[in-house]
């Protein structure tokens, strides 16, 4: 079976700053995968390389077997990305935004699916509103809808719940979990570690451009629990994250 995402020996520098240093990672089809790390760890750079927004200096990356540079058309069709920034085109309505995004991927007559994701993301009442008039939470929903409009098998969400209220976070995770159950591969970056703990089957932690931990969520928690000296209290992913980032051996 072909890997949903394959990253081999990727390195990327921004001038003197080494954003990624020989990163290798494979994410299997159907996984709900967490990519965690502090600000500046290289998460967004790695996502940008997968999306073709940034070119790596060394190494190879592929989506569903398609190299992101050599077979960029196939790779991009296989991938949906929810960007971290709340960006939108102020000229168009929600529906126009989704129709254009669908057309960019060469999909015509996609109205039924556009209607479905508008409904699923509770955007029905705003479908014909200009993007400028939407609240931050609504704009975030449209970003998710744009990433899904071409029905990609692999979906990357770059901090999708940053600045989003509790209600939307819950409905968004229910929707994303359903996509995962339907067979979509989900890659999530977030600073809300309780979300990553409850949703992700496997987690990679990045620090200063290197992978410093890569295991199933259960194993990370188990290993940390076994080493915890006081033996009291429930171990959570935040404890694991803090220990790994501070350099403690697990």
């Amino acid at each position, binding site marked *: 079976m072909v890997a949903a995402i394959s990253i081999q020996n990727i390195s990327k520098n921004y001038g003197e700053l080494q954003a990624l240093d020989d990163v290798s990672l494979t994410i299997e089809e159907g996984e709900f995968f967490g990519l965690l790390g502090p600000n500046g760890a290289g998460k967004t750079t790695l996502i940008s390389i997968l999306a073709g927004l940034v*070119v790596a200096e060394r190494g190879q990356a592929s989506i569903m077997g398609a190299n992101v540079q050599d077979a960029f058309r196939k790779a*991009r069709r296989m991938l949906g990305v929810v960007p971290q920034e709340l960006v939108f085109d102020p000229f168009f309505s929600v529906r126009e935004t989704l129709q*254009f995004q669908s*057309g*960019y*991927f*060469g999909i015509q007559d996609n109205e039924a699916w556009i209607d479905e994701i508008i409904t699923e993301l509770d955007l029905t009442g705003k479908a014909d509103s200009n993007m400028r008039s939407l609240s931050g939470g609504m704009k975030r929903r449209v970003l998710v809808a744009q990433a899904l409009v071409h029905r990609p098998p692999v979906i990357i969400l770059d901090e999708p719940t940053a600045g989003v209220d509790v209600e939307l976070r819950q409905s968004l995770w229910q929707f994303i979990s359903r996509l995962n159950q339907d067979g*979509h591969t989900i890659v999530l970056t977030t600073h809300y570690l309780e979300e990553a703990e409850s949703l992700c089957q496997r987690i990679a932690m990045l620090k200063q451009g290197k992978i410093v931990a890569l295991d199933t969520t259960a194993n990370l928690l188990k290993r940390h629990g076994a080493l915890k000296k006081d033996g009291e209290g429930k171990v959570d992913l935040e404890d694991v994250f803090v220990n790994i980032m501070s350099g403690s051996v697990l």
Partner: protein
Amino acid sequence: MKINPVVYRSGFPTLLRKEVKRFYKVAFQTIAAPVLTAILYLMIFEHVLSDKEMYGRISYAAFLIPGLVMMSVLQNAFLNTSSSLIQSKITGNLVFILLAPFSHFEFYAAYVLASVFRGLVVGICVLIITAWFATPSFESPLWILIFVFLGAAILGSLGLIAGIWADKFDQLSAFQNFIIMPATMLSGVFYSIHSLPDIWQVVSRFNPFFYMIDGFRYGFFGVSDVSPWSSLTIVAAFFVLVAAIALRLLQKGYKLRN
């Protein structure tokens, strides 16, 4: 959502439609305003120079109209690509186009064809409204079409290059005000270069915009400062040059994919 098999076509027609719809949504600013500017130029210059004849037989108003039409086409073609790209870069929504599976040819063709379309819409509006002042003849419509398409495509490509290069609105404004505007205004829109001192005639011949306007004007009157074939050769070569530069920048992802 089930992962259904989907038939993929080129995204080029959608990107072209989006770029056209973008300027159509603000047509008062993108079409009506430049038409008004051209009419004001015509009213002022025609009033001051109404007794002047060009090429020995053409009224100044009739001579000026093709120049104003072409100037409007060129400036608006440049503005369409450059403003669209810089706005998308600065607001960040260019990411939606960069995430899509466009080749650099599709990206280039969609942006430049939309700019040609805007240039033509503005040019036709200027031509229709200025016909109230004078009606130029249409001696060789094919030359008119060739030069207007090539001129608009060149300025659309230059707008793309400027939009890619500029990081801020003031950089784009500098490109427009210190390169495009002087080159357009000094290209013979308002005069024949034979009326200039010798040194400025020589300087004018190094301005590719002069050949766009002179060739375009030949299509109306059947006379021009230089042979239309010479103008076509120079304009076509200039188009190939700017198109090659724009395509290379897009292919490398210069200031777009980094």
